[in-house]
């Protein structure tokens, strides 16, 4: 897989990795959540996964860094085959940043330490270098002044931005976002989205599960609509969000874009 180097404004250039999923299947007992999904993300590309809850989009995202183990299919991330039983999963995960819906910041560490612990323990960077990288990334998400705060002293939006800085501090080549704004108060959503928008501009490969259609339209190179464990429709944001062809996509977008729309059972 080819890696593309993009230059970016202030921070180090982003080395971007691609993702390739083939015939991915995942079941919980008799419940098949992913029914054979194939998806390619080119280095530097931003792909938004949309779809109703329970459509399998979060499971798909979690399969990419093996937080969920797929039953069948192959996953390639950068130079790694994640589904190879002999893969060094920890080495692969260093290249894959993950941002969770619930932030999952480490509550016993302050914002700076949240961003340094994996640098020192996993990448074996000296503390001073780790601190510098962490501070630069906290600046990057606009929170340089809150480095000493603990997670419970930060708002949801600030916590999520620290979580993004934590992932970026590992110099990932791919970022996974699992509904990063779904647990946020409406007034803090914008800050998180603007951080993500900048990241996309810098050339980071991003796979984003989201309900933010505005963000998808503006930032995504490609939008993938999933329902019932399959990819129903994919294309550019203009195609999928602007002019969907499948009825399930149309139905979903109608509900998401028009909250006052009420389904009346016939």
């Amino acid at each position, binding site marked *: 897989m080819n890696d593309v180097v993009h230059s970016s404004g202030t921070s180090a250039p982003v080395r971007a990795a691609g993702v390739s999923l083939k015939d991915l299947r995942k079941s919980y007992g008799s419940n098949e959540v992913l029914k054979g999904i194939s998806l390619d993300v080119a280095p530097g590309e931003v792909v938004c996964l949309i779809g109703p809850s329970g459509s399998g989009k979060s499971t798909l995202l979690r399969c990419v860094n093996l937080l969920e183990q797929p039953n069948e299919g192959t996953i390639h991330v950068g130079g790694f085959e994640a589904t190879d039983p002999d893969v060094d999963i*920890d080495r692969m995960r*260093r290249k894959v940043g993950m941002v969770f819906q619930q932030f999952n910041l480490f*509550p016993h560490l302050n914002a700076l330490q949240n961003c340094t*612990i994996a640098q020192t323990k996993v990448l074996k960077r000296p503390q001073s270098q780790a601190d510098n990288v962490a501070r630069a990334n906290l600046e990057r998400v606009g929170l340089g002044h809150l480095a000493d705060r603990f997670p419970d002293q930060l708002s949801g939006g600030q916590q999520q931005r620290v979580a993004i800085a*934590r992932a970026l501090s590992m110099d990932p080549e791919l970022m996974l976002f699992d509904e990063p704004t779904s647990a946020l108060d409406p007034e803090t959503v914008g800050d998180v989205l603007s951080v993500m928008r900048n990241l996309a501009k810098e050339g980071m490969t991003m796979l984003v599960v989201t309900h933010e259609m505005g963000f998808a339209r503006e930032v995504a190179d490609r939008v993938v609509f999933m329902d019932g464990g399959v990819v129903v429709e994919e294309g550019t944001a203009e195609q999928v969000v602007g002019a969907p062809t499948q009825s399930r996509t149309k139905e979903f977008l109608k509900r998401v874009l028009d909250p006052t729309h009420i389904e009346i059972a016939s």
Partner: protein
Amino acid sequence: MAMTARQRAQVSLYVQAGIFVVAVAALILATDWKTIGTSVFNFAKIGPMFPDIFVAGLKNTLIYTSLGFIVGLSGGLLLALMKLSSFPLYRWIATGYIEFFRGIPALLVFIAFGYGVPLAFGVQWNVTIVVMISLGMVAAAYIAETLRAGLQAVPKGQLEAARSLGMPQWRAMVSIVIPQAFRIVLPPLTNEVILLTKDSSLIYVLGLTASQYELTKFGRDGISSLGAGLTPLLVAGAFYLVITIPLSLLARKFESRSARTKR
């Protein structure tokens, strides 16, 4: 005259307080203070207990308890991790151990390691080793259950976030999960230390030399050597409170602190 519910509750409280005062007064009046003063708690006999109660009794109680706690904490952590392991054999061993050592009296464990094991294997252990092992192995069983609950109380997302940053399982446990679990279990863990402090008295079943006496044995010995009724034992009891009450206060402080950080 009719009373409101509030007034009735008020009167009821006064009555309860009155009964309590009368009971205490009756107890004081009925007590044979003269006999108690000579053969149960004789102030004049307290003096000779010092300073030995510090250099032997209190010191040894603290040493035995600390050693037992160190063994109990490390063993308990190991057992807790085994109990949460995905490998069934580890879970069975941990469960068996915990059920066994929680289910038998600690006294029997002291006898087993004081007499049984040395006899069976032809080894010679000094008292400190026996206390460390016996107290530690009993403590490990209780602490394991406390720690297991603490480890399970750490949200699953914490482990996922740590693993996502490329931390191997053991590193994620050591740097992320276990520190948070300890914070959660500090109050119950402090209570374990209190129980341990009192259980250290069980080594009286072993033959001890005077320099090995801990508080209870020191007190029992004082009864015969000083001829002071129960005085030495009561003084020893007071010293336990000197250890345990600050620990209780500490546990309560931990509790209020974790209640504050948890929103």
